[in-house]
Protein backbone atom coordinates (compact mmCIF):
# COMPACT_ATOMS: atom_id res chain seq x y z
CA UNK A 1 0.00 0.00 0.00
CA UNK A 2 1.23 3.51 -0.81
CA UNK A 3 2.19 5.58 2.20
CA UNK A 4 1.10 9.23 2.13
CA UNK A 5 3.96 11.64 1.50
CA UNK A 6 4.64 15.27 2.27
CA UNK A 7 6.85 17.53 0.14
CA UNK A 8 9.21 19.53 2.35
CA UNK A 9 10.49 23.05 1.74
CA UNK A 10 13.40 21.85 -0.39
CA UNK A 11 11.18 19.54 -2.46
CA UNK A 12 12.17 16.30 -0.72
CA UNK A 13 9.44 13.72 -0.13
CA UNK A 14 8.95 12.57 3.44
CA UNK A 15 6.56 10.02 4.85
CA UNK A 16 3.51 11.75 6.34
CA UNK A 17 2.72 10.76 9.92
CA UNK A 18 0.99 12.37 12.89
CA UNK A 19 4.36 13.78 13.91
CA UNK A 20 5.46 15.14 10.52
CA UNK A 21 4.52 18.69 11.50
CA UNK A 22 5.96 18.32 14.99
CA UNK A 23 9.18 19.24 13.23
CA UNK A 24 9.54 23.03 13.50
CA UNK A 25 10.92 23.08 9.96
CA UNK A 26 7.97 21.26 8.37
CA UNK A 27 5.53 23.22 10.51
CA UNK A 28 7.05 26.59 9.57
CA UNK A 29 6.81 25.71 5.90
CA UNK A 30 3.24 24.35 6.07
CA UNK A 31 2.01 27.35 8.10
CA UNK A 32 3.53 29.70 5.54
CA UNK A 33 1.60 27.95 2.79
CA UNK A 34 -1.73 27.93 4.69
CA UNK A 35 -1.81 31.56 5.91
CA UNK A 36 -2.68 33.19 2.52
CA UNK A 37 -5.60 30.77 1.99
CA UNK A 38 -7.13 31.40 5.38
CA UNK A 39 -6.59 35.15 5.00
CA UNK A 40 -8.34 35.22 1.62
CA UNK A 41 -11.22 33.01 2.78
CA UNK A 42 -11.63 35.07 5.94
CA UNK A 43 -11.76 38.39 4.09
CA UNK A 44 -14.28 37.07 1.54
CA UNK A 45 -16.56 35.49 4.16
CA UNK A 46 -16.28 38.60 6.36
CA UNK A 47 -17.20 41.02 3.56
CA UNK A 48 -20.13 38.83 2.48
CA UNK A 49 -21.32 38.45 6.07
CA UNK A 50 -21.08 42.19 6.76
CA UNK A 51 -22.93 43.04 3.54
CA UNK A 52 -25.78 40.63 4.23
CA UNK A 53 -25.91 41.34 7.96
CA UNK A 54 -25.76 45.13 7.85
CA UNK A 55 -27.40 45.91 4.51
CA UNK A 56 -29.93 43.19 3.69
CA UNK A 57 -30.97 41.30 6.83
CA UNK A 58 -34.38 42.52 8.06
CA UNK A 59 -34.85 44.48 11.31
CA UNK A 60 -35.78 42.27 14.28
CA UNK A 61 -39.37 42.77 15.40
CA UNK A 62 -38.46 42.61 19.13
CA UNK A 63 -34.97 44.08 19.41
CA UNK A 64 -34.98 46.48 16.47
CA UNK A 65 -31.59 46.99 14.83
CA UNK A 66 -29.69 46.43 18.07
CA UNK A 67 -29.85 42.70 17.29
CA UNK A 68 -27.28 43.23 14.49
CA UNK A 69 -24.60 43.08 17.17
CA UNK A 70 -25.22 39.30 17.01
CA UNK A 71 -23.16 39.18 13.80
CA UNK A 72 -19.97 39.96 15.74
CA UNK A 73 -21.00 38.92 19.26
CA UNK A 74 -21.83 35.27 18.57
CA UNK A 75 -18.74 34.54 16.41
CA UNK A 76 -16.48 36.21 19.01
CA UNK A 77 -18.09 34.28 21.87
CA UNK A 78 -17.93 30.93 20.05
CA UNK A 79 -14.32 31.52 19.08
CA UNK A 80 -13.38 32.52 22.63
CA UNK A 81 -14.40 29.01 23.77
CA UNK A 82 -13.15 27.11 20.72
CA UNK A 83 -9.76 28.78 20.79
CA UNK A 84 -9.46 27.90 24.47
CA UNK A 85 -10.21 24.23 23.72
CA UNK A 86 -7.65 24.25 20.89
CA UNK A 87 -5.10 25.99 23.13
CA UNK A 88 -5.60 23.53 26.00
CA UNK A 89 -5.51 20.62 23.53
CA UNK A 90 -2.22 21.71 21.96
CA UNK A 91 -0.75 22.51 25.37
CA UNK A 92 -1.76 19.08 26.67
CA UNK A 93 -0.37 17.37 23.57
CA UNK A 94 2.92 19.21 24.02
CA UNK A 95 2.98 18.21 27.68
CA UNK A 96 2.33 14.53 26.88
CA UNK A 97 4.54 14.08 23.80
CA UNK A 98 7.22 16.76 24.39
CA UNK A 99 6.43 18.20 20.95
CA UNK A 100 7.66 21.77 21.11
CA UNK A 101 5.59 22.88 18.12
CA UNK A 102 2.35 21.84 19.89
CA UNK A 103 3.24 24.10 22.80
CA UNK A 104 4.13 26.87 20.35
CA UNK A 105 0.62 26.54 18.84
CA UNK A 106 -0.86 26.88 22.35
CA UNK A 107 1.14 30.06 22.99
CA UNK A 108 0.22 31.39 19.56
CA UNK A 109 -3.51 30.91 20.21
CA UNK A 110 -3.62 32.55 23.65
CA UNK A 111 -3.53 36.27 22.68
CA UNK A 112 -6.09 35.73 19.90
CA UNK A 113 -8.35 33.82 22.31
CA UNK A 114 -8.03 36.64 24.84
CA UNK A 115 -8.95 39.15 22.12
CA UNK A 116 -12.06 37.16 21.13
CA UNK A 117 -13.06 36.92 24.80
CA UNK A 118 -12.66 40.65 25.31
CA UNK A 119 -14.68 41.31 22.12
CA UNK A 120 -17.45 38.95 23.26
CA UNK A 121 -17.65 40.88 26.56
CA UNK A 122 -17.46 44.29 24.87
CA UNK A 123 -20.12 43.58 22.25
CA UNK A 124 -22.19 41.86 24.93
CA UNK A 125 -22.13 45.01 27.05
CA UNK A 126 -23.16 47.14 24.06
CA UNK A 127 -25.98 44.71 23.33
CA UNK A 128 -27.03 44.36 26.98
CA UNK A 129 -27.49 48.10 27.54
CA UNK A 130 -30.29 48.63 24.98
CA UNK A 131 -31.98 45.23 25.52
CA UNK A 132 -31.58 44.59 29.28
CA UNK A 133 -30.92 48.12 30.46
CA UNK A 134 -27.52 47.24 31.93
CA UNK A 135 -23.96 47.17 30.54
CA UNK A 136 -23.05 44.38 32.91
CA UNK A 137 -24.76 42.00 35.33
CA UNK A 138 -23.11 39.38 37.57
CA UNK A 139 -24.89 36.61 35.78
CA UNK A 140 -23.57 33.06 35.25
CA UNK A 141 -22.88 33.42 31.52
CA UNK A 142 -21.16 36.79 31.81
CA UNK A 143 -19.18 35.91 34.91
CA UNK A 144 -17.86 32.62 33.49
CA UNK A 145 -16.86 34.44 30.27
CA UNK A 146 -14.98 37.01 32.37
CA UNK A 147 -13.19 34.13 34.14
CA UNK A 148 -12.23 32.85 30.67
CA UNK A 149 -10.52 36.18 29.97
CA UNK A 150 -8.58 35.84 33.24
CA UNK A 151 -7.59 32.27 32.30
CA UNK A 152 -6.12 33.49 29.00
CA UNK A 153 -4.30 36.33 30.76
CA UNK A 154 -3.09 33.88 33.43
CA UNK A 155 -1.78 31.50 30.77
CA UNK A 156 0.14 34.29 29.04
CA UNK A 157 1.37 35.81 32.30
CA UNK A 158 2.59 32.49 33.69
CA UNK A 159 4.33 31.64 30.42
CA UNK A 160 6.01 35.04 30.30
CA UNK A 161 7.18 34.78 33.91
CA UNK A 162 9.32 31.65 33.33
CA UNK A 163 12.52 32.25 31.41
CA UNK A 164 13.08 28.75 30.00
CA UNK A 165 10.47 28.39 27.23
CA UNK A 166 10.06 24.60 27.60
CA UNK A 167 9.51 24.87 31.36
CA UNK A 168 7.10 27.73 30.73
CA UNK A 169 5.23 25.54 28.21
CA UNK A 170 4.74 22.82 30.81
CA UNK A 171 3.60 25.11 33.63
CA UNK A 172 1.21 27.01 31.37
CA UNK A 173 -0.14 23.72 29.94
CA UNK A 174 -1.19 22.58 33.42
CA UNK A 175 -2.99 25.88 33.97
CA UNK A 176 -4.70 25.61 30.55
CA UNK A 177 -5.86 22.03 31.22
CA UNK A 178 -7.23 22.81 34.68
CA UNK A 179 -8.97 25.93 33.35
CA UNK A 180 -10.70 23.90 30.61
CA UNK A 181 -13.35 22.97 33.18
CA UNK A 182 -14.69 26.51 32.70
CA UNK A 183 -15.66 25.88 29.06
CA UNK A 184 -18.68 23.56 29.71
CA UNK A 185 -19.66 25.92 32.53
CA UNK A 186 -19.85 28.84 30.07
CA UNK A 187 -21.67 26.77 27.47
CA UNK A 188 -24.31 25.26 29.78
CA UNK A 189 -24.64 28.28 32.11
CA UNK A 190 -27.78 29.44 30.32
CA UNK A 191 -29.43 26.08 31.11
CA UNK A 192 -28.06 25.48 34.60
CA UNK A 193 -28.85 28.83 36.16
CA UNK A 194 -31.52 31.47 35.86
CA UNK A 195 -29.89 34.03 33.68
CA UNK A 196 -30.64 37.19 31.76
CA UNK A 197 -28.64 35.90 28.83
CA UNK A 198 -30.76 34.38 26.11
CA UNK A 199 -30.30 30.73 25.11
CA UNK A 200 -28.27 29.75 22.05
CA UNK A 201 -29.48 31.26 18.78
CA UNK A 202 -28.39 28.21 16.81
CA UNK A 203 -28.06 24.64 18.08
CA UNK A 204 -27.06 21.52 16.18
CA UNK A 205 -29.99 19.26 15.33
CA UNK A 206 -32.71 21.91 15.70
CA UNK A 207 -34.27 23.89 12.88
CA UNK A 208 -32.97 27.49 13.08
CA UNK A 209 -35.49 30.00 14.37
CA UNK A 210 -33.83 32.99 12.64
CA UNK A 211 -34.70 34.56 9.31
CA UNK A 212 -32.59 32.99 6.52
CA UNK A 213 -30.67 36.22 5.80
CA UNK A 214 -29.82 36.61 9.52
CA UNK A 215 -28.65 33.01 9.74
CA UNK A 216 -26.59 33.28 6.54
CA UNK A 217 -24.89 36.47 7.76
CA UNK A 218 -24.13 34.94 11.16
CA UNK A 219 -22.68 31.73 9.71
CA UNK A 220 -20.55 33.71 7.23
CA UNK A 221 -19.20 35.81 10.11
CA UNK A 222 -18.47 32.65 12.10
CA UNK A 223 -16.54 31.28 9.10
CA UNK A 224 -14.66 34.59 8.81
CA UNK A 225 -13.72 34.58 12.51
CA UNK A 226 -12.53 30.95 12.21
CA UNK A 227 -10.29 31.85 9.26
CA UNK A 228 -9.04 34.98 11.03
CA UNK A 229 -8.20 32.99 14.17
CA UNK A 230 -6.36 30.28 12.22
CA UNK A 231 -4.41 32.72 10.05
CA UNK A 232 -3.37 34.94 12.96
CA UNK A 233 -2.42 32.00 15.20
CA UNK A 234 -0.32 30.40 12.46
CA UNK A 235 1.41 33.70 11.78
CA UNK A 236 2.18 34.16 15.47
CA UNK A 237 3.36 30.54 15.71
CA UNK A 238 5.83 31.21 12.88
CA UNK A 239 7.16 34.21 14.83
CA UNK A 240 7.61 32.05 17.93
CA UNK A 241 9.40 29.35 15.90
CA UNK A 242 11.80 32.04 14.66
CA UNK A 243 12.27 33.44 18.17
CA UNK A 244 13.04 30.00 19.63
CA UNK A 245 14.89 28.32 16.77
CA UNK A 246 16.28 31.40 15.03
CA UNK A 247 19.85 30.16 15.20
CA UNK A 248 19.06 26.96 13.24
CA UNK A 249 20.67 26.88 9.81
CA UNK A 250 17.48 25.99 7.92
CA UNK A 251 15.71 29.06 9.32
CA UNK A 252 18.55 31.40 8.49
CA UNK A 253 18.43 30.20 4.88
CA UNK A 254 14.64 30.64 4.71
CA UNK A 255 14.48 34.16 6.13
CA UNK A 256 17.14 35.67 3.84
Amino acid at each position, binding site marked *: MDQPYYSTANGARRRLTVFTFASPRNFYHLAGRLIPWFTALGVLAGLAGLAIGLL*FAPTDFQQGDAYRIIFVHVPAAWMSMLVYMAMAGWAGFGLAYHTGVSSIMASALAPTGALFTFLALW*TGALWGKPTWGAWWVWDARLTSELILLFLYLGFMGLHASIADPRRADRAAAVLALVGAVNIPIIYFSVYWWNTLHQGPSVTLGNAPTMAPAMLAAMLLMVAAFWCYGIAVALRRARCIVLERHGSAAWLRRRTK
Partner: protein
Amino acid sequence: MNWHSLQDFLAMGGYGLYVWGSFSVVFGLMMLEVWALGRREREVRAAVSSHDNEGAA
Protein backbone atom coordinates in the same frame (compact mmCIF):
# COMPACT_ATOMS: atom_id res chain seq x y z
CA MET B 1 -31.79 46.46 0.80
CA ASN B 2 -33.15 47.13 4.28
CA TRP B 3 -32.42 50.90 4.30
CA HIS B 4 -33.91 53.92 2.57
CA SER B 5 -30.95 56.30 2.94
CA LEU B 6 -27.43 56.58 4.31
CA GLN B 7 -28.70 58.46 7.39
CA ASP B 8 -31.17 55.64 7.96
CA PHE B 9 -28.32 53.10 7.76
CA LEU B 10 -26.05 55.05 10.11
CA ALA B 11 -28.85 55.61 12.65
CA MET B 12 -29.53 51.83 12.88
CA GLY B 13 -33.07 52.48 14.06
CA GLY B 14 -31.77 54.55 16.99
CA TYR B 15 -29.20 51.95 18.07
CA GLY B 16 -26.31 53.42 16.05
CA LEU B 17 -24.10 54.00 19.09
CA TYR B 18 -24.36 50.36 20.18
CA VAL B 19 -24.13 48.75 16.75
CA TRP B 20 -21.24 50.91 15.47
CA GLY B 21 -19.55 50.81 18.86
CA SER B 22 -19.48 47.02 18.55
CA PHE B 23 -18.41 46.68 14.92
CA SER B 24 -15.76 49.41 15.07
CA VAL B 25 -14.05 47.98 18.17
CA VAL B 26 -14.18 44.39 16.82
CA PHE B 27 -12.58 45.23 13.47
CA GLY B 28 -10.33 47.93 14.92
CA LEU B 29 -8.77 45.54 17.44
CA MET B 30 -8.45 42.80 14.80
CA MET B 31 -6.53 45.18 12.53
CA LEU B 32 -4.41 46.24 15.50
CA GLU B 33 -3.54 42.58 16.18
CA VAL B 34 -2.55 42.00 12.54
CA TRP B 35 -0.44 45.19 12.59
CA ALA B 36 1.30 44.14 15.82
CA LEU B 37 2.03 40.71 14.33
CA GLY B 38 3.58 42.30 11.25
CA ARG B 39 5.84 44.36 13.49
CA ARG B 40 6.83 41.29 15.52
CA GLU B 41 7.58 39.42 12.28
CA ARG B 42 9.85 42.19 11.00
CA GLU B 43 11.67 42.41 14.35
CA VAL B 44 12.33 38.68 14.63
CA ARG B 45 13.43 38.43 10.99
CA ALA B 46 15.87 41.28 11.56
CA ALA B 47 17.19 39.55 14.69
CA VAL B 48 17.65 36.25 12.84
CA SER B 49 19.47 37.83 9.91
CA SER B 50 21.78 39.88 12.18
CA HIS B 51 22.57 36.64 14.04
CA ASP B 52 23.45 35.17 10.65
CA ASN B 53 25.80 38.05 9.80
CA GLU B 54 27.64 37.64 13.10
CA GLY B 55 28.14 33.96 12.27
CA ALA B 56 29.56 34.76 8.83
CA ALA B 57 31.99 37.41 10.10
